[in-house]
C-alpha cells in the first residue's frame, strides 16, 4: 500500500497552490515605497576598449537620479572564483578581476559598463540609450573560438593573460604515464571528437534584484533571485562591497527556477545595493529576456577528444581525454570547479576502468561567463563516456548492452575506489540495467522498428548507463581540492508553544518542492501531521548559515542536518517527559507523536511537551533550558552516487532529418525515495532538459562574438510535444551509506544521463537505415544536421 503521508508518500506539492494560482511572491512582484529603477548599459561589441563615457546629457534627462560607471567601483573588490585550480605544472590558475561594472575594457556582448537609476523604468531606459550613444568604445578583434584563443597570444581577453588560458589541469597527473602505457599495448583504440554544446539556462523567472539601504541603522537588504542567499551575502560582504555580514540581509523569496544560473553573485546585485546607499531609496532591476540570454552564466561548452583503449571483446582498459572548456569572459563563482572536479572525477563512469587520465584546458573568450548548469561537469563526462562506449561497440561489432554489463562495477565491489579520486559507497548497476531492459521492452524493439519502417521512418535505440557524484560535498575533501567555501548545510527546527513547527533551512527551494518534502520528513519523525510543519527558507535573517541548493544536495545534506536537529528535539523532549512523568529519561520512548514510559500507559503527547517547554511551570529548570528549538549543521562524509540506466528510442525521418523521441525509459537508483511523485517530476524535468540539449538547444556566437541565438526566435527550448511520456522507475534502491536518510539526490540525474542516450539512438537509427558512414553528430542533433550527416 502506498503511504498517503510522511516519508515515501506522494504528498501533493503544497507550494504549487500559490505558484499555479498566481499568488507566488517573486522579487519583481514586491513593490517598495519610494522605489527607483536601474537599467544597465551593456556592450554591443564582444571586445572593446572603453574610451569615454559622457554622462552629461543622460544625467540631465527627466527622472534620472544617478549614473554609475566602472570608475565608481574600481576601488571595491571583485566577484571572486570560489575554487582554486592548479595547473599541471603546479602554478595557480589565472584569476582576472571581475568588477561590478566593466572598467577599461568590455569583454562580451552584454557586459555592463554603466548603469542609470531613474524614477521610472522608461526614464532609466531612455537615459541608458543616451548613455550608450554617448559612449565611445573602440572595438577590438573578438576571441570566440577556443582553439584560436589558445593559439593566438596576441589577442587577449584579459591583457595580463597571454594565452587566454585560465589553467591546464591534469587529473590525475601522476597516473598519466600508466594510462599512456595502457594505450600503447591496447588491442583496440576508439577515438571520438565531440562538442558538448553551450546552453543558456533559461529559468522561467529572469534575474531580479532590489537593493535597500536603511539610513537609520546603516543596514542593507538585498532581495534577489538566488539559490543560496548566504553565499551571496558572504560574497557581497567579504569580497565585493565590504558591507559587514551583520549589516546585510539577503532574501531570496519565491524563485522561478535557477538550474545553476542563480547560484552565482552577479554585478547587478552589488550595483542596486550601492545605488540604494547613494540614493537612500530602494533600487530595483529585473532582467529583460535578452539580458538573461546575454548575461546569465551559461552551461557546458566543452570541446573534447576522448580515447578509449579496450580488448577486442569490449573490456575497457583505459580512458584518456583532452578537453577545452570555455569559461567565457570572466570567472563566475564555480566556473573553475565545473570542468575539473565535477567532470574529471567522473570520467570512469560506472565502469571498472583501471586507467583514466583527464586533461582540461580552461579558456577565456569574449562570450558570456560559463558555469555550473543542471548536472555541471557530470553531463559532459557522461556524454563523452557513453558516446565512446557506443562507438567502441560499433567498431568491434559488439552488443552495447553486453559490453556495458561486462564493464559495470559489480555489486560486491563496493565501496569502490576509482582511478579518478572518488569512492563510490554503494550501488547495483546491474539491477538498474536489468530493470531498464524489462521496462523498455528491449526484446520487442525489432517489431517496433519494423512498424516505423513501414511509415518511412528509421527507428533506433540508445543506451546510457550513468553515474554522478552529488550531495555536494565533504568540506575537508573539497578544501584539499581547492574549494574556498565549506559545503555543509544547516537547519533549525523550532517547535512552537502550541506544538506546530517551523523549520528554517539553509537549502533553498526554487521549484524543487522542499516545502512539501521536508515537511513530510519532519512530520514522520515527530509523528505529527504534515500540515503542522512549515518550512522557512531563503532569508538570511531567519535561517541558519547554509550553503543553498545545487548539486542535488538539498535532501542529502540539508535534509540530513534537519534530521539531526529533529533527533535533538526528541532527545530534549524525552528529558522534559521524564520530568513530567516522574520517570527515568532512559525509560522514555518516543513513538507515534507520544513520549511514554516504557511498558506503561503513562504518556505525554508531543503537544503537551512543547507547551511545557514554553510554559515551564512543571519543568526541570535547574538542569534544562526552557524552549524547544534545535539547530544542526551537517557536513557529508562523502559525495552520494545516484546511478541508473536510460534507454531512448527515436524515429528519424530520413527525408527531413527530423528526430522524434518515441520513448524514453529511466531506471534509477536514488537511494531511499522520500516523495515518489516529486522524484519522478525531477527526472521528467531533467530528461526534458537533456533532450533539449541533445536535439534543440544551440547557443551560437558568430565570429564577432554576437550571440545569434539571443531570443526564443532562434534558441529552441524543449516544449511539451518535443518530449514523450516518460517511463520512470526508482525501485532499485541501494541506500546511501553515510547520510541518515539513505538518500542520494535526484535533481540532476535526468540531465546527466539522457543526452548520450538520445544521440546514441539517432546514430543507431541511421546505422540500421544503412547510413553506416555516420559516426557522430554534434548536439543539438537538429534536423538539418541529421540530413547533412545522411547526405554528407
Amino acid at each position, binding site marked *: 500500500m502506498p503511504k498517503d503521508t510522511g516519508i515515501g508518500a506522494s504528498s501533493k506539492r503544497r507550494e504549487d497552490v500559490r505558484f499555479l494560482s498566481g499568488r507566488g511572491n517573486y522579487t519583481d512582484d514586491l513593490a517598495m515605497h519610494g522605489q527607483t529603477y536601474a537599467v544597465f548599459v551593456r556592450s554591443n561589441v564582444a571586445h572593446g576598449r572603453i574610451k569615454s563615457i559622457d554622462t552629461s546629457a543622460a544625467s540631465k534627462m527627466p527622472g534620472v537620479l544617478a549614473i554609475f560607471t566602472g570608475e565608481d567601483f574600481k576601488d571595491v573588490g571583485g566577484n571572486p572564483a570560489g575554487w582554486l585550480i592548479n595547473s599541471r605544472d603546479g602554478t595557480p590558475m589565472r584569476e582576472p578581476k571581475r568588477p561590478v561594472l566593466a572598467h577599461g575594457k568590455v569583454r562580451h556582448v552584454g557586459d555592463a559598463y554603466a548603469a542609470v537609476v531613474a524614477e521610472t523604468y522608461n526614464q532609466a531606459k531612455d537615459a541608458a540609450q543616451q548613455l550608450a550613444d554617448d559612449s565611445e568604445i573602440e572595438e577590438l578583434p573578438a576571441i570566440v573560438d577556443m582553439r584560436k584563443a589558445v593559439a593566438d597570444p596576441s589577442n587577449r581577453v584579459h591583457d595580463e593573460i597571454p594565452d587566454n588560458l585560465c589553467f591546464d589541469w591534469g587529473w590525475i597527473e601522476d597516473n598519466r604515464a600508466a594510462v599512456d602505457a595502457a594505450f600503447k599495448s591496447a588491442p583496440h583504440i576508439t577515438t571520438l571528437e565531440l562538442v558538448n554544446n553551450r546552453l543558456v539556462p533559461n529559468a522561467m523567472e529572469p534575474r531580479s534584484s532590489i537593493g535597500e539601504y536603511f539610513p537609520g541603522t546603516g543596514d542593507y537588504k538585498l532581495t534577489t533571485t538566488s539559490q543560496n542567499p548566504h553565499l551571496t551575502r558572504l560574497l557581497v560582504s567579504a569580497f565585493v562591497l565590504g558591507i559587514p555580514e551583520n549589516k546585510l540581509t539577503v532574501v531570496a523569496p519565491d524563485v522561478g527556477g535557477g538550474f545553476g544560473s542563480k547560484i552565482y553573485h552577479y554585478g547587478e546585485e552589488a550595483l542596486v545595493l550601492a545605488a540604494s546607499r547613494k540614493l537612500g531609496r530602494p533600487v530595483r532591476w529585473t532582467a529583460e529576456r535578452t539580458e538573461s540570454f546575454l548575461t546569465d552564466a551559461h552551461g557546458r561548452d566543452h570541446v573534447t577528444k576522448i580515447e578509449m583503449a579496450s580488448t577486442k571483446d569490449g573490456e575497457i582498459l583505459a580512458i584518456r581525454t583532452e578537453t577545452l572548456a570555455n569559461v567565457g569572459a570572466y570567472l563566475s563563482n564555480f566556473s573553475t570547479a565545473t570542468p575539473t572536479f565535477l567532470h574529471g572525477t567522473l570520467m570512469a563512469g560506472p565502469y571498472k576502468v583501471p586507467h583514466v587520465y583527464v586533461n582540461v584546458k580552461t579558456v577565456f573568450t569574449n562570450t558570456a561567463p560559463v558555469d555550473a548548469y543542471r548536472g555541471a561537469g557530470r553531463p559532459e563526462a557522461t556524454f563523452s563516456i557513453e558516446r565512446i562506449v557506443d562507438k567502441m561497440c560499433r567498431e568491434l561489432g559488439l552488443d552495447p548492452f553486453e559490453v556495458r554489463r561486462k564493464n559495470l562495477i559489480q555489486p560486491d565491489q563496493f565501496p569502490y575506489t576509482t582511478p579518478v579520486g572518488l569512492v563510490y559507497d554503494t550501488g547495483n548497476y546491474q539491477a538498474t540495467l536489468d530493470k531498464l531492459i524489462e521496462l523498455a521492452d528491449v526484446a520487442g524493439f525489432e517489431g517496433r522498428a519494423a512498424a516505423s519502417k513501414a511509415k518511412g521512418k528509421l527507428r533506433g535505440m540508445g543506451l546510457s548507463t550513468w553515474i554522478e557524484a552529488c550531495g555536494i560535498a565533504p568540506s575537508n575533501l573539497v578544501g584539499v581540492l581547492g574549494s574556498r567555501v565549506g559545503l555543509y548545510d544547516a537547519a533549525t527546527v523550532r517547535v512552537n508553544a502550541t506544538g506546530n513547527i517551523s523549520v528554517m533551512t539553509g537549502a533553498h527551494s526554487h521549484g524543487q518542492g522542499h516545502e512539501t518534502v521536508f515537511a513530510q520528513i519532519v512530520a514522520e519523525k515527530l509523528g505529527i501531521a504534515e500540515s503542522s510543519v512549515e518550512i522557512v527558507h531563503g532569508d538570511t535573517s531567519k535561517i541558519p548559515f547554509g550553503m543553498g541548493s545545487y548539486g542535488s544536495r538539498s535532501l542529502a545534506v540539508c535534509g540530513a542536518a534537519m534530521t539531526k536537529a529533529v533527533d535533538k528535539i526528541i532527545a530534549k523532549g524525552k528529558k522534559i517527559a521524564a520530568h513530567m512523568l516522574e520517570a527515568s529519561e532512559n525509560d522514555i520512548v518516543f513513538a507515534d507523536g507520544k513520549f511514554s514510559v516504557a511498558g506503561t500507559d503513562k504518556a505525554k503527547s508531543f503537544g503537551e511537551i512543547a507547551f511545557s517547554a514554553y510554559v515551564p511551570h512543571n519543568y526541570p529548570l535547574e538542569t534544562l533550558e526552557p524552549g524547544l528549538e534545535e539547530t544542526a549543521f551537517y557536513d557529508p562524509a562523502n559525495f552520494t552516487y545516484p546511478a541508473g540506466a536510460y534507454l531512448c528510442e527515436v524515429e528519424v525521418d530520413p527525408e527531413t532529418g527530423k528526430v522524434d523521441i518515441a520513448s524514453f525509459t529511466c531506471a534509477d537508483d536514488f537511494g531511499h525515495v522520500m516523495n515518489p511523485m516529486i522524484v519522478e517530476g525531477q527526472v521528467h524535468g531533467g530528461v526534458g532538459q537533456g533532450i533539449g540539449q541533445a536535439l534543440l538547444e544551440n547557443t551560437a556566437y558568430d565570429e564577432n562574438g554576437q550571440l545569434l541565438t539571443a531570443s526564443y526566435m532562434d534558441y529552441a*527550448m524543449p516544449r511539451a510535444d518535443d518530449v514523450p511520456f516518460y517511463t520512470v522507475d526508482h525501485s532499485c534502491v541501494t541506500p546511501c551509506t553515510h547520510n541518515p536518510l539513505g538518500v542520494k539526490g535526484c535533481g540532476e540525474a535526468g540531465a546527466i544521463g539522457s543526452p548520450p542516450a538520445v544521440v546514441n539512438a539517432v546514430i543507431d537509427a541511421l546505422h540500421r537505415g544503412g547510413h553506416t558512414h555516420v559516426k557522430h553528430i554534434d548536439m543539438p542533433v537538429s534536423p*538539418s544536421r541529421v540530413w547533412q550527416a545522411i547526405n554528407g
Partner: protein
Amino acid sequence: MHNFDFVKPSSIADAVKALSKEGAQALSGGQTLTPTMKQRLAAPTVLVSLTGIDEMKGVCLGEDGLSIGAATPHAVVAKEAAKHYPALAMLAGGIGDPAVRNRGTIGGSLANNDPAACYPAGVLGSGATVVTNRRKIAADDYFQGMFTTALEEGEIITGVTFPIPEKAAYVKFNQPASRFALTAVFVAKFKDGVRVAVTGASNDGVFRWSEAEKALSGHFAASAVEGLSVSSDGMIGDLHGTPAYRANLVKVLTKRAVAAAQ
C-alpha cells in the same frame, strides 16, 4: 516601449482618416508590432486599432469564394473556414500557439509578409485576392519580397478572398525555435491547374514553384514531383538550415502536400 496614443475606430473610413496622421500606424493583433515596440525598434505616435471594425471581421462564403475580414484572428479562421476550405483552416490552426492565434490576424500577417509566415503561402497558393481600402490586388502582384508588399502608404488590407480549390494541403516544417515555417508548402488543385507556393525557404519571400505546378497540373500525384530538382540558389541559409537543406525540404514537403491534399 515609448508612449503612444491609441484610437479604436469602428469604420474603415475612420481608420483610414486616423492613419493619415503623422506617425500613425495600424495595429491589428499586435503579435508582431507590440514586440517590436517593446524592443524599441518601432515607435509609432498613434496606434490605430483595426479590431473594432465589424466590416473587417469574419469568414463568409460568397460567389467569388471564401472572404475573410483582415482583422479576423487565426483561431476564428481555423474554426470557421474548416467546412469550406479545410487546408486553409489547418494552416491558420498551425500558426504559433493558442494565444497568438487568438489575437494575430490574417491582415496583419499579410501586411507584414514575414518570409517564414504561413498565410503568404496560403494566399499565393490559392491565387487569392487581397482587398484594400483602395483596390483589389491579385496574390501574384501582392508579395514583393521579404517584408515587402504592394501596399502603399496609408493603404490598409480590409479582407482577402480565396477561390476554393478542388483539393489542397499545407505542409509546414517547423523551425525548431520559433516554429514559424523553416520551409512550408501550400499546394492547391483547381479545375484549370495546380498552384504550389513555398514559404520560409527563399531570400525573396514566398514564391511559386512553377516546375512543380506544371508537372502536377499534368498528373496530380507525389510521383510527378519526384524527377524535379530544386536549386538552392537564393535559398535562405541560417543556423537552422543551409540553402541545400531548404531546397530539399521544398521537394519533400511538396510531395507530402500532394499526398495529403483533400
